């Protein structure tokens, strides 16, 4: 009996050691970046670099563009995917496999290749607007938004609920508004957050289409002011964290 | 293919197992005679599964011994105990076919491929799944999976067969079918078996003896008829079968008045003084019902509901005195009565088990 207990202890300790080592690997670069960004000219530590963030004039423009792109991407994504996924769960059931298949295709085309195609196929007046990026971001997000919405509706067996509601006399409008939408909230939240995280970090397409979004701007800044760039990176990482923590909160509350 | 062999006895001695502050098993003593099937019956948390897992070796007791066939195996690892176990569900290896699952124990014992698949096929025939040899678990129903699990457990010719609520996850009809098959197989093979369940009907139907457990203790271990007729504790009485709890008072000469008749005290409580209040436990099948206008002895009441259960019908009577009484009658007889009828209820046995009421108040009556 003692032998069994000792073996179980050893197993347990090994597990924690591995977890710790992996944790170390992920925390050290962040620590390094934090340390670097907090180091000031005269070798002391301070928030100079972070203060600089707010003193940089381009920041406002860049953030505005990224924010705009985020909003458009999310709106587009939801506008296209929510009705579509609802439809394939409610009445167009036999198209579900097809829609699923099409939705995950963006995973097969690397963004660097997609942008190559976009640059060569889009009309020039479209290329002149940064909003085109948002349209492409919605495409990049498609596999994830489909999955989030699809999972949300599947778990619900929406067809039965809708049938019950219709049986009780509800109109289609009522059904969509009062039954489908509220239950889809968790899926919509998830899909929206994933899209936002994608847009905030997307570099490849934005830089190759020569737009000044937040991620591309960090890169440009990096060429002249490393401290500022690192400070920005740390800040954006922290922001992504907050975002996903909020997502998991929203998720949990729905489940309760 | 015969598998009868010398059956093994099993002894659990003073087994104790605690989880933190919870006492799962409190000095359990249990002996299984060779070839016997004992069912451990009780609500969840009573310790029955803990006892089974200790016997299997999947858990270690804090103190006590486990003796199988005269040998102390308390410290023998689970993989070397030569016991076959059937779990409640999900225990078949999903990547192996039914035949490969059954043959697994043999493979581990280095039985050759041809030989072990042959034996697996025979065992699957035995449980009625000869055709499903090459099916995977996910393509089988719950009942079929459990049969495969059973075949797999006995393939290794174990000394003891352990069943952990094997039927609980199945549909009612499959459950009773499989229950009988397990019993048939167990008798044929002659293997000492411990069967854990929370379903008292199941336990009573197949076991040689039933052990009722509560909070880590074995309250009573008896053959099913004895358990049914002579429950040793109030808990056992309430757990096994249905009972009417009719308050009554002990009278001189070991008599209690129940439903208009004087019944002898069968057992159930230690000597109770005259005048003590008690519950008489009367089985629904021990009550007769007659029309109110007939001149029979008994207590008056009205029929509240009737439930047709097939060969019997259960009537709920509300006595004029206020009590509810459950009565099971053959359906042909119960046909006469409908809700609202006025009737007279009478006890049909001569003896009854009585229990102390929760708070015994000995009054001078």
């Amino acid at each position, binding site marked *: 009996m003692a032998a069994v207990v000792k073996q179980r202890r050893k197993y347990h300790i090994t597990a924690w050691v591995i977890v710790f080592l992996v944790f170390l690997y992920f925390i050290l*670069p962040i620590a390094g970046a934090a340390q670097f960004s907090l180091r000031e000219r005269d070798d002391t530590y301070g928030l100079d670099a972070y203060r600089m963030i707010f003193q940089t004039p381009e920041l406002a423009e860049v953030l505005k563009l990224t924010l705009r792109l985020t909003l458009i991407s999310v709106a587009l994504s939801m506008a*296209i995917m929510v009705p579509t996924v609802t439809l394939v769960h409610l009445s167009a059931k036999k198209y579900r496999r097809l*829609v699923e298949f099409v939705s995950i295709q963006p995973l097969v085309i690397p963004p*660097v290749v997609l942008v*190559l195609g976009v640059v060569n196929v889009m009309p020039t007046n479209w290329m002149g607007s940064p909003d085109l990026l948002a349209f492409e971001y919605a495409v990049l997000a498609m596999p994830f938004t489909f999955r989030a919405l699809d999972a949300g509706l599947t778990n619900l067996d929406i067809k039965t609920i809708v049938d019950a509601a219709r049986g009780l006399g509800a109109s289609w409008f009522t059904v969509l508004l009062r039954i489908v939408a509220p239950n889809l909230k968790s899926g919509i939240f998830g899909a929206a957050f994933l899209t936002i995280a994608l847009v905030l*970090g997307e570099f490849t397409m934005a830089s190759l289409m020569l737009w000044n979004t937040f991620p591309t701007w960090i890169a440009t800044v990096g060429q002249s002011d490393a401290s500022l760039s690192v400070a920005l990176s740390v800040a954006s990482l922290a922001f992504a964290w907050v975002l996903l923590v909020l997502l998991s909160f929203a998720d949990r509350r729905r489940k309760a | 293919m015969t598998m009868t062999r010398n059956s093994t006895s099993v002894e659990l001695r003073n087994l104790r197992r605690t989880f933190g502050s919870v006492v799962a098993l409190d000095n359990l003593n249990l002996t299984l005679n060779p070839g016997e099937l004992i069912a451990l019956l009780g609500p969840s948390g009573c310790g029955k599964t803990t006892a089974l897992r200790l016997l299997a070796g999947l858990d270690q007791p804090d103190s006590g011994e486990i003796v199988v066939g005269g040998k102390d195996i308390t410290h023998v690892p689970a*993989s070397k105990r030569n016991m076959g176990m059937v779990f409640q569900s999900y225990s078949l290896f999903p990547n192996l076919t039914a035949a490969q699952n059954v043959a697994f124990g043999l493979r581990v014992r280095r039985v050759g491929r041809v030989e072990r698949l042959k034996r697996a096929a025979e065992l699957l025939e035995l449980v009625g799944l000869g055709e499903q040899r090459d099916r995977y678990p996910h393509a089988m129903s719950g009942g079929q999976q459990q049969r495969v699990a059973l075949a797999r457990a006995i393939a290794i010719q174990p000394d003891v067969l352990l069943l952990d609520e094997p039927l609980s996850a199945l549909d009612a009809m499959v459950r009773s079918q499989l229950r009988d098959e397990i019993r048939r197989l167990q008798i044929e093979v002659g293997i000492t078996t411990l069967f854990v369940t929370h379903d008292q009907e199941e336990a009573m139907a197949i076991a040689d003896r039933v052990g009722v457990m509560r909070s880590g203790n074995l309250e009573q271990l008896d053959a099913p008829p004895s358990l049914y007729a002579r429950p040793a504790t109030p808990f056992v009485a309430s757990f096994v079968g249905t009972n009417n709890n009719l308050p009554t008072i002990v009278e001189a000469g070991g008599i209690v008045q129940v439903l208009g008749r004087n019944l002898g005290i069968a057992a159930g409580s230690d000597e109770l003084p005259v005048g003590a209040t008690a519950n008489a436990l009367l089985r629904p099948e021990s009550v007769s019902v007659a029309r109110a206008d007939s001149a029979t002895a008994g207590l008056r009441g009205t029929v509240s509901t009737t439930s047709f259960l097939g060969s019997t019908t259960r009537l709920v009577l509300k006595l004029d005195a206020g009590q509810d009484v459950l009565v099971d009658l053959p359906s042909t007889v119960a046909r006469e009565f409908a809700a609202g009828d006025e009737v007279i209820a009478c006890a049909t046995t001569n003896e009854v088990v009585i229990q102390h009421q929760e708070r015994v108040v000995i009054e001078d009556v």
Partner: protein
Amino acid sequence: MRKFRDVVGLFPFFAYTAVFFGAPTVMVIVKAFQDQNGHWTLANVVESVQDVYFDSFVESLKLAFASAASGTIIGFAGAYALLATGNAWLRKITQTAAGVFANTGGIPLAFMFIAALGTYGLVTQMLLKLGIDIYAGSWTLFGFSGLLIVYLYFQIPLMIIVILPALEAQRKEWREAATNLGATTRQYWLHVGGPILFAPVAGAFLLLFANAFAAYATARALTSGTIPLVPLQIGSLLSGNVIADRANLGFALGFGMIVIVAIAMYVYNATQKRAAKWLQ
């Protein structure tokens, strides 16, 4: 009537996908097989696997394979260890953290590693204090091995995300039943545990492979052309480094990338389907 309404309802989705995804993709594939006059030719495709481009493919495949292999192994160990601790809070945190880290890349990631492993990096300094000088030889963060180390930062989390559900689907009944039937730990993993996990792990490997192969931002941030990689080649061709009569070379390279990633993704999909069937 209903059918018509369904088709109309799904039209926006298909139209949108066709315009913003289908058209660019088709453009790449078609132009890969055309010269700049629009005539069909295999010249671009042939050129795309020769000389420096051939090296690019080789390096890209090597990097993808190496980071997928190491990511799979370390990620698996990490996920397994995580579950072995039995700590539910840790599990929850890891889920969120993995989501964030799987999406890090580009300049932020590169700078983080420079700050850690660069010549004056935090870890470099720490190791120096222990007497280890990682720059003693000719090692550089901006080489192949450096890229490999940095790629793990998003590969490991991706692996963890993908493999945790599969690991959690392992039922303890299987292990107990095997033990009860007499199997040792080794025998269990050999006959039951291993085979069951093979499909999810293989699938995860392919996912990591495709992910690393397609990565652009991180590679660009760290190497600036010192290592030939296909995404970087495409990037530089897009940025104006056009070779006179090989304007469509970029498309051929893109086509090559599509083929490789597509194969990886489709095999991944197949393994997931198979695994899902067993683990119902």
